């Protein structure tokens, strides 16, 4: 299963003229395939792939070049896993790291949770999603992760804004389809011609987060995730 970075439906890369990708890395977890009756079946990821745990993976679509120069050279663009034989028509997954692993010590975590660039050492927990685009003199990036956590770093009891996103794609065939992550949809409403690079790092005072959060189906003020995301879609 392949992930593709897109801008308004067309692939976008770190080397593009005009609007280029500057970052796209995310943790996906709790993957399930939906059969014709809508019943969910757990997708077991293979652990011989270094960026996968059985129920969690790091997707990395930036190559550390050009506009992505602050990133990493490795590309982890696909998932490999298994489900019982059958006909599947949908896909469901979470963008995020399950609570317990999210707040464990990142210095002794198993891959792919050992990537320090994906950790939010001062907020506790991982950046579930890092995404950004750049133009010649403008750009925008966001880091999504849990905020408003209570307790202390080694003993987090809960977070007011968990900020995990559930993605559900119907009309998705695991054998032939890919998953598009559309940055135009994510950054809808961001002005890329004002020469003012902006950012959102999930803090409650950051008004720039409201639009990308809405695109992910999260109400920025309350943290509820009842909205529908429109960033992830089936890609053929």
């Amino acid at each position, binding site marked *: 299963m392949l992930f593709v970075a897109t801008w308004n439906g067309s692939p976008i890369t770190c080397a593009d003229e005009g609007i280029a990708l500057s970052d796209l890395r995310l943790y996906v977890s709790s993957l399930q395939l939906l059969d014709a009756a809508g019943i969910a079946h757990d997708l077991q990821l293979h652990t011989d792939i270094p960026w996968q745990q059985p129920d969690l993976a790091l997707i990395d679509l930036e190559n550390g070049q050009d506009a992505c120069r*602050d990133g990493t050279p490795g590309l982890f663009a696909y998932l490999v896993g298994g489900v019982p034989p059958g006909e599947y028509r949908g896909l469901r997954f979470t963008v995020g790291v399950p609570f317990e692993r999210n707040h464990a010590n990142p210095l002794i975590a198993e891959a792919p949770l050992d990537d320090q660039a994906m950790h939010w*050492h*001062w*907020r506790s927990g991982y950046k579930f999603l890092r995404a950004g685009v750049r133009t010649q003199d403008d750009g925008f990036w966001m880091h999504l992760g849990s905020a*408003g956590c209570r307790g202390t770093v*080694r003993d987090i009891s809960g977070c*007011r804004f968990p900020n995990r996103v559930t993605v559900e794609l119907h009309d998705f065939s695991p054998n032939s389809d890919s998953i598009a992550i559309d940055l135009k949809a994510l950054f809808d409403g961001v002005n890329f011609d004002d020469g003012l690079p902006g950012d959102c790092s999930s803090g409650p005072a950051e008004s720039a987060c409201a639009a990308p959060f809405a695109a992910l189906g999260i109400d920025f003020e309350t943290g509820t995730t009842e909205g529908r995301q429109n960033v992830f879609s089936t890609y053929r």
Partner: protein
Amino acid sequence: MRNVLLACSVAAVLAMVFWWLQREPAYEWRLPADVPAPLVPADNPMSATKVQLGRWLFYDTRLSGNGSMSCASCHIQALAFTDGRARSIGSTGEVHPRASMSLVNVAYASRLTWANPLLDRLEDQALTPLLGDNPIEMGFGSHADEFAVLLESDPGYAALTRAAFSGDKNPYSLLNGVRAISAFVRSIVSFDTPYDRYMAGDDDALGEAAIRGMELFFSEKLECFHCHGGFNFSDSTTHANTRVDPVGFHNTGLYNVGGEGAYPEDNTGLFDMTGERRDMGRFKAPSLRNIAVTAPYMHDGSVATLGDAISHYARGGRLVEQGAYAGDGRLSPYKSEFVRGFELSDEQSRDLVAFLESLTDATVLSDERFSNPHLD
């Protein structure tokens, strides 16, 4: 048979003696008798060797993404391990929203940094300046794997690392490197100020102005000590002999943007961590030890001198007359009840400054144990 037993006993005793000689002596804090030892995490006990390793690492510019800065770049010993800037500047030139904090006696801080209720251990806090990318400080995040390589490949580091973490199968790790830096920073303790000597019975240690200033400081009229109290002059102070976890965050009326208590968006204090409106503009009361050498003041360095800081509290909040942050902090709905304002003559203000200056420990500002070993 008896000889065999005897030989075995002798061997056992010799082995114990050998082990005893080999093991490192207990760490010496060199504290005054009435000062409790700092709290030390069970998984990172102090040792002189570990502190020494941490000292070399603290001053090593190889721990930044572009080799331009070390921990010490923003924590300069002569400035009580601050950097003298209003806002610190990272290795790539990015300006941090907040000012570098003093590391002296940080071992006693119950929470670390300006307004983070989650960070209670240096081992966790150190990861942000080292690895964080928003803003970029040392910018080592995409080089994190190189830390272990440095510890193993540099012969000096390899020997110190093996000795400091002798129980570890593989001692060369980011985890152990950060533990060593934390142990060094924790070792920077200081209780050798004129104020400390005065309290220990040396009546000549403080001048008359400082003594008058001390009385003002501890008065109910000024209320300074409610937040800056205790042996470390901060209400967020903990130590090895306590079971409580004192933590205080306070809005001092520094801003009142728009008249509804808001702070500038990049510095909302505790609110940024909790999302609770009542936490707007609440920051930790830092220790006042060595405060005279750590100007400018406040989380964003927006107060230039100790006299200005006193004026701010005397007014009961700061008036920002114009610009994007205009507003009267005195009227902030989130302001601490202890920031009520007070009348103070110019002479009294000077006395209070004299007292604050008596909290400077000249020894810790130049002590070789905390200096840059790469220069020796």
